[in-house]
């Protein structure tokens, strides 16, 4: 464990160093990421000025919902960037280098890939939204809620990690998965910024069972907000985000291991 931590810190140091080589540029990039994402928030804010609420969710509640997306993504991208860009790793042969080293294949990928600039951009925005909204929607912070919030964040990171891990495993078979990611990750993420209950059954099913973004932000937010639209879903959905994260990640990992064997047996 200590061993893995020291490797992570060595990579983190190198990653930060290379990203902040040109400091002004790095800060501009972080700011640009921040603004790009904040644009979505502002658009939502302006729309809410007109409508007042969406499905009984006020603007502050929506911001709370939104903040979970940014916070989990900010952490997610510290660990899973290599999987986000995995097709390139295969095409450029970088992946073979990983295979040769005396460390777990996935350990290396998770530790070495960190998009620090995106992490800072998304992370700051997420934390900012959380600070603004949490008070106004009346979240009571105590040991229990803080702990559950943190577990939900970890669960949300694992859910997204599992999705990318599964896509990476698919890469072994088809080499190019960027359009899959576009449809099943980035588009679903756009849906997830609004309450699940506003969508039709089909999209809800996808968000709950296929790419379970609902467990990244909607159900954990319901735990804190207790909105009436939660009545359409089993109550226990509010409590299982950490479990969904772990189970999904374990399944994705099994699929990854299986596919890795396939990769070796075919060669590329």
């Amino acid at each position, binding site marked *: 464990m200590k061993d893995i931590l020291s490797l992570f810190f*060595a990579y983190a140091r190198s990653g930060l*160093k290379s990203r902040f080589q040109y400091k002004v540029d790095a800060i501009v990039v972080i700011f640009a990421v921040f603004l790009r994402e904040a644009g979505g928030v502002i658009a939502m804010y302006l729309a809410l000025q007109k409508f007042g609420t969406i499905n009984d969710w006020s603007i502050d509640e929506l911001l709370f919902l939104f903040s979970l997306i940014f916070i989990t993504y900010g952490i997610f991208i510290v660990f899973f960037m290599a999987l986000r860009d995995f097709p390139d790793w295969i095409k*450029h042969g970088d992946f*073979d280098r990983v*295979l*040769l*080293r005396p460390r777990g294949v996935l350990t290396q990928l998770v530790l070495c890939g960190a998009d620090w600039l995106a992490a800072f951009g998304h992370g700051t925005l997420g934390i900012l939204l959380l600070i603004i909204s949490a008070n106004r929607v009346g979240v009571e912070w105590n040991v229990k809620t803080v702990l559950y919030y943190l577990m939900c964040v970890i669960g949300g990171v694992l859910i997204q990690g599992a999705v990318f891990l599964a896509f990476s495993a698919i890469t072994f078979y088809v080499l190019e998965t960027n359009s899959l990611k576009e449809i099943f990750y980035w588009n679903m993420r756009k849906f997830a910024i609004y309450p699940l209950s506003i969508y039709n059954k089909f999209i809800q099913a996808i968000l709950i069972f296929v790419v379970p973004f609902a467990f990244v932000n909607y159900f954990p937010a319901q735990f804190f907000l207790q909105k009436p639209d939660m009545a359409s879903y089993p109550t226990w959905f509010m409590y299982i985000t950490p479990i969904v994260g772990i189970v999904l990640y374990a399944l994705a990992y099994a699929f990854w291991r299986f596919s890795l064997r396939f990769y070796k047996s*075919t060669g*590329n």
Partner: protein
Amino acid sequence: MIVMKELSKTFPDNVTAVKNISLHIAPGESVGLIGANGAGKTTLIKLICGMCKPTSGYLRVFGEDPLRRSKNSPPIGLVSGAVITDGYNYHYGHASAVLQDDIELSLNLEIVGNIYRIPKTLRLRRTDDLTKAFGLNDLLHYRVNQLSLGQRMKAELAAVLLLAPKLLILDEPFIGVDAASRQTMRNMLRSLAAKNDTTVILTTHNVLEAEQICSRILLLDSGTLAYNGSIDRLKRSHIGLNRVRASFDDMPPDLGDMPVARYTAENTCMTIEYDVSNISSRDLSGYLIKGSRLSDIIIEKPTVEQIIREIYKEEQNGNDDKC
């Protein structure tokens, strides 16, 4: 160290890159893997490294199946040379570079040490030795993408030697490298091979380079092992023709019934090709000196490259016959 029995690898598109190769490489041996592009060199290396699975046959590296390499398996050092795609850009062969482009060399070496669990003191000592040997001392604080290709390849080799690997595989390490750096790398490899402590596999299509470093040559030809043995034996078994270039003060002599293969004479110069098993160089040159006014004489031995070209030719002719 490495044992292969009837090893084959066929890709899903039905290309058989490695066909029925059986061979044994002893610990500490240095072997040159030679073959044209597409001869199966890279696939063979991938199989040895456990990056892909053989279709059939037996393969053991360090006594273990390379596909089942564990965290405790002895490290394999792999250096891949650059493939230049156009005038300026280059990328690396199948397993790309050890070093990360956008950070300093020193931090790179630290990460390599970390990944391979090399204790810090040992890492620092080796880094010190290696950077001295490769003349990289002043470059430690440069980012890798600021290095020239020659410097970079030296750094790659140094980074891999940091692991003190028992098996070192070099895939075309000299491509695009300037003469001085090439010399440094070659010297390093030669002394490494001489110590008989590290098994070295050098892939190249430059036979001369292989000859300087390796004691044995493996010649791959479309996936099969066309030759496996020492360079000396290669020379002896496929003796090419020696060649004498002689110039004279006046007319070249008449060779009469000397058992030479062929000769050409032009003005006062003469080129003679002969097989040393028919006539020794001493007898031939003695005849030339005695019989006429010799002004200059050069005797050339056949180069390994010529011999290999002939072997390939034989193979190809053989194949043509079958068709």
